[in-house]
């Protein structure tokens, strides 16, 4: 198994529940501008390599989800800005270029200290 991405949540914006209600988690790296923090999950990236693609696994505190689709700018966002739009919309083609799509599931609760991990089974 290859670990592509690993981070820990450090801050949760007050508008995050609005996004969760629509089935999306918006992450940003801890360098994000203050104004973005209100609706973002801020995380500290501990490890990153490669590029995320469909078939990889996203895990939040051990809850695992298969990546179904990856938008055209999602990897740039993730690796340059720590920015991830994780959408539980079940799409196999990303609606928006920034999306990383997983099955239509209830998203797990996220707290400060929660762990995000993206892995590939080799």
């Amino acid at each position: 198994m290859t670990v592509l991405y690993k981070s820990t949540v450090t801050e949760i914006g007050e508008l995050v529940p609005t996004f969760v209600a629509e089935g999306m988690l918006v992450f940003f790296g801890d360098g994000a501008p203050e104004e973005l923090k209100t609706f973002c999950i801020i995380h500290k990236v501990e490890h990153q390599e490669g590029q995320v693609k469909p078939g990889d696994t996203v895990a939040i505190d051990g809850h695992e989800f298969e990546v179904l689709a990856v938008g055209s700018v999602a990897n740039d966002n993730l690796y340059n800005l720590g920015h991830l739009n994780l959408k539980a919309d079940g799409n196999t083609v990303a609606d928006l270029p920034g999306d990383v799509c997983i099955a239509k599931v209830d998203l797990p609760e996220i707290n400060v200290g929660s762990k995000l991990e993206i892995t590939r089974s080799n």
Partner: protein
Amino acid sequence: MAEYKSVKIEKGPGGWGGPLTIKPTADRPYIYSVTGGGIHPLAAKIAELTGGEAFDGFNSSKPFDQIAVAVIDCGGTARIGVYPMKKVPTVDIHATSPAGPLAMFITEDLLVTGVKLENINPA
């Protein structure tokens, strides 16, 4: 005292919204680049043509009411709505259309997308 000039910013191929006419003022001088990796070339061009001050929003922040225009590289969900929500004109380098929980704040007079260098011209 700086002299500010107007630019007209039109949508690029497959883009949405606009055109925006941007003219910084002494109170709103900043061309705010929220793209990561320094000042985006679009922000640099807008700053050059208007006399505004290019500013890297990932290094530090400025209050919304001092931003003449925000330049983003948003894939469609988050940044695309944040600045329009605060009535800050916004330019997205990607050709996205409004979506997500913030879509209700986004109007054609506040957002233009898919913008390329040639879509920015003196007004």
